[in-house]
């Protein structure tokens, strides 16, 4: 069974003056369990929307998204919340750590809506990302690279089947970018999680064996280009 299978996925947004603009049309996309795929594309081309549709944060106009055998688009909202809490890890360009929570608490949050709090695992993950001495530090007390490592640990906290990473190196320098991607791949390998990264950074592509061009995947962009 495929980890992720997408068919004829379409999404449009309403325009202020009426009508709608189509931003995304993906005819087919598939990932097997443990796959690590990077989708490279320009900023503002609908990659984040693609990840939000997979995670069930947005509803598609048409098509299907099957994650580990579950049809995401027909699930109720609370079922999609549950799916995110138990099967998906999400990493953002801006890390999106909660500022009022310590490193350890941020990682605990990553598991609190799903499998339940497991402080040992949270501590272990922070040790793996090299932050065992920063457990009680708040995000503002950390460097940008350290904040990103907390975000990686949080994304893996609920033992997800699929990790979605949206421009995970967007705020990092080249050295930290490479280290972050390597760490992310190691963490996913350790848990057997699939990894889907979207990035505009061409250098990120070098770290992945499976590379997809967003311009080729999204029919809307193909149509614009042609």
């Amino acid at each position: 069974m495929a980890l992720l299978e997408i068919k004829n996925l379409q999404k449009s947004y309403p325009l202020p003056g009426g009508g709608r603009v189509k931003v995304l049309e993906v005819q087919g996309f598939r990932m097997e369990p443990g796959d690590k795929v990077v989708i490279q594309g320009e900023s503002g081309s609908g990659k984040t929307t693609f990840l939000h549709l997979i995670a069930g944060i947005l509803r598609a106009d048409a098509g299907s998204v099957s994650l580990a055998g579950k049809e995401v688009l027909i699930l109720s909202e609370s079922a999609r919340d549950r799916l995110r809490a138990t099967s998906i890890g999400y990493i953002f360009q801006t890390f999106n750590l909660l500022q009022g929570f310590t490193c350890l608490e941020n990682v605990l949050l990553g598991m609190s809506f799903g499998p339940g709090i497991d402080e040992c695992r949270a501590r272990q993950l922070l040790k793996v990302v090299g932050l065992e001495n920063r457990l009680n530090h708040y995000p503002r007390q950390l460097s940008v690279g350290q904040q990103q490592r907390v975000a990686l640990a949080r994304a893996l906290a609920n033992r997800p089947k699929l990790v979605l990473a949206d421009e995970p190196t967007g705020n990092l320098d080249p050295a930290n970018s490479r280290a972050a991607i390597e760490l992310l791949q190691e963490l996913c390998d350790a848990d057997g999680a699939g990894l889907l990264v979207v990035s505009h950074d061409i250098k990120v592509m070098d770290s992945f064996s499976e590379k997809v061009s967003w311009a080729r995947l999204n029919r809307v962009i193909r149509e614009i280009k042609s």
Partner: protein
Amino acid sequence: MKGTALWIALKSLRQHALSTSIAATSIALAGGLLMAVWILRSEAENTFARSTGGFDAVLGARGSQLQLVLNSIFHLEASPGTIPGNTALLLRRNPMVGRAIGRAIPIAVGDNYKGYRLVGTVKELFEEHEYAEGRKFKVLGRGAVFEGDQKQALAGSFAAEKLGLKVGDTFQPYHGLTYVEENQHADLYTVTGILEQSGTPVDRVIWIPIQGIQNMDGHREETRGDISALLIKLKSKTAVAILDPMFNRQGKDYTFAQITPVMSRFFQKFGWFEKVLELVAYMVALSAAGTILAILYNSMNEKRREIAILRSLGARRGTLVSIVLFQSMGIALLGIVLSFVFFTGVALVAAGLIRNETGVSLDLFAFHEVFIWVPIGMLLLGLFSGLVPAVKAYQTEVSRNLTPTS
């Protein structure tokens, strides 16, 4: 999931400690004020109505019933005048009322010692009379009640404490009910005993034999046999039906006042003041609710991104609603705890002032239903204040607030 919501709510309250404290203080002021107003009113009314000193009525000179009761029972205000010293004897000889009167204790006022009243009376008040069901006045230690024919004094506990009087001390009284240094009498009194605290106005009086007041150096010769009032304990309450018209309607020389109804009417006169205080408390409560609502609502604007992040981690809309409601109720709970602190402060100060002025001890910490309904009311207020921000949290659009679309 509820545990997670509670955890996040508490973290958030701690993160915004200043605004949390401001809102909780508003709740505390409202709750504390409401409890203080209610308890002080009901306890003062009940205690004063009960503080009859074990008597049913007072017979005194023609004048105001309230003034007569305040002067004779609470030792406040001036005496409305004097009545003949043989009034008790005349009453007992009256075939209509003689048998209805159980006890009649004469008192005479007119002097003080450093602002504390000297009241002349008879030993019977301390040796035989019960000031409450089964309770007689007690003299502390090896002290004793004064002898009727001696210049001796029995000090109330509060007066003794404030004046530093102890057994064996001597003092010279001052003329009048107000302390004026130049008006000192030549008579020298010796303290023979200190009364155990009774929580009644008796505590703030220095008691001397009635002849002491009557014969005090400098008092007018022609009124020496007079008394200020007669404190009456009735054998049967039905005697009121005879005594009231006899003295208040048919006679012109006396005033007969039933203590409890007079005090009830006295407190009814303060009804408007209680209403004003209650209104103030309700307005503070409303303002507290508004503060909570504003703080949480504004924080919702700041927290849209946090809410979106929590949703991306799998938090349900209901969880977010719970978080906001836990926050508002957390503020209310903190306010409730502080309201008891505030109430305790107000109650202690008020009880001290009342005891200083009247000698009456109020039991402000006995259980009262207001201790239940005020906290419940404050909790509901907190819940209500959190509803609008909770709806806002519920409606927060995740995708739009999560990250800029790339």
